Structure formats: C-alpha cells, structure tokens
C-alpha cells in the first residue's frame, strides 16, 4: 500500500489529500459532499451506529485515515474509545456494543467481506433490531465507506502517520443567503 500520492492536489498550496485531490473533479466533489451531508444529517439511523460501521470498514479495508477520524455527532451519542476498541474481530462478545450495533457490524462484514455472513440468525437479528429504512441507510453508508476508503487507498492518499482527529460530522451545506 502506497503512502505516496499517485495524483496531485487540485488546490494550489495544499498537499494531496482526499478533498484536494477530489478538487480535480469539482462536480463529483460537490455531489459527494451533498450526499454525505444528507446521509449523516439523517437521524433514521443513529450517527453512533453509522460510526460503528465506518470504524469496522476502516479496520477491514486497512484505511488508516478513516481509522483515525472520529465524527463528533457519534461521540456525543456515547461512542467513546473504549467502545471503538471493541469493534474488532470478536465484537460479538463485547459488553459495550449493543445488540443492534452487533447486528449492524455483521451486516457490514457481510457487505465488505463475505455475503454468506448474513444468513440465518444474523439476518434475522438484523431485521429484528433495525427497520427496513434503517437498513437502507446502513447499506448506503457501508457502500460509501467502502468505496471511498478503497478510492483513497488506491490514489495513494494514506497518511504515513496520523493522530486521532475529531472532525465535525458532515452536514448539509446551507445555500448562501
């Protein structure tokens, strides 16, 4: 895995990172940030469950950038580091993760790794803990987390080192008055 950017920054004076590289394609960037803001702004599925799924994706896809970013909305919903530490193999036995979060993690693993993980009891548990609308939102989220992590990695945008960084949760941008 390369930590040397394979594409230059599209913003003068800024190093290559996901945002500055996406500036080469401003229409894609604008559409993505509108989508991501809408996704995180929706409360159909809690930000905490979305962040649990995002953390799992970060670990499985080996996205160091994703792994070190935290969104503040999920922190406000009690997703502390002691909980994040449990989002690893064996999460099924965690006493800190809720049953709904474990069901969401199984769905995440099935989508990003092996669809056969979501059969029988796991599928029933997902449908017991989440509504169809919540599963739809979770499906969108994991699709985006996975795709963007892989795009980031393959464009060589993995940081060599990065501290844990809390960022404002993406939000819908208000049109200028």
């Amino acid at each position, binding site marked *: 895995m390369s930590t040397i950017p394979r594409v230059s920054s599209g913003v003068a004076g800024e190093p290559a990172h996901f945002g500055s590289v996406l500036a080469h394609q401003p229409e894609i960037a604008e559409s993505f940030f509108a989508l991501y803001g809408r996704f995180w702004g929706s409360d159909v599925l809690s930000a905490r469950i979305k962040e649990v799924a995002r953390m799992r994706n970060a670990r499985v896809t080996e996205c160091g950038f994703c792994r070190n970013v935290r969104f503040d909305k999920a922190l406000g919903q009690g997703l502390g580091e002691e909980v994040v530490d449990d989002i690893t193999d064996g999460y099924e036995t965690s006493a800190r993760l809720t049953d709904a979060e474990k069901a969401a993690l199984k769905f995440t693993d099935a989508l990003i790794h092996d669809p056969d993980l979501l059969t029988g009891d796991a599928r029933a548990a997902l449908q017991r803990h989440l509504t169809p609308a919540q599963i739809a939102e979770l499906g969108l989220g994991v699709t985006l987390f996975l795709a963007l992590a*892989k795009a980031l990695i393959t464009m060589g945008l993995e940081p060599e080192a990065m501290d844990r960084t809390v960022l404002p949760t993406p939000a819908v941008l208000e049109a200028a008055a």
Partner: protein
Amino acid sequence: MSAVCAALAGDPVLAAHYADFRGKTEAALAPALVALVALVRQAVAAVHGMGAAPEESALDEGTKLCLAYARRMPFEHTAITDAEAAAVVAHLGEAGFVAFSVLAALADAECRAALVGVAELAGVEANPTP
C-alpha cells in the same frame, strides 16, 4: 438501477443525492470514455461472479489496462502498485484517474451491496443487479 438506489426507495431525497453522485462520477468519464464506464462495471461484476467478463479483444491497450486495474479493486486494492496506477494516470490524466478510482471502487461496493441483498432487506421486493 443499482441495488443501493433501489434500497433507498423510501427516502427519495437521499436516493436522488446518491443517483446524482453516481451519475456525476459516470459523466466525468463521458463522453470520450463513455464505453469505459460500462466496461468497468461489467469487469468488476464479473470478479464477483455477477455475469460474464467483457470481451476485450477489440479494445485498445489503454482500455485494457484500465480494466485490469479495475479488476484488482474487489480483492486486491492494497496490492495495486505505483506503476499500475501511473499507467492509468498516463492514459486518463489526473482528473480522469480520480473519477475512474471513484467509479471502480463504487462499482465494487455496489456489487457487494447487491450480493448481500440490501434492497430486499430494505423492503424492496426484487434485488436488482448492480
């Protein structure tokens, strides 16, 4: 329609945002590379066992190397080398490489979403192909 779009039928605004993002990614490679968009989706789907691989005998070398790169996305994304990426950049340009990277990664994720049955789980009767 992709499985993800179908799954979002209950939230038309979010569905429209997703369709717009998908469409903008596609449009960034069209019209000059409009054929590449479909070929990339087909090549990635074939890796997942979702249909036949594209027929490549009549394709130019640049398109072939893009497809070879896209086929690495599902299971070998961390093993793609700087040289492989540089070859795609040389063919598509930097802006094209950015759009292509998002397109190929999204194609992979959409296949996986279809395989896990996201639309059916979201209450949509049929789970469409990616």
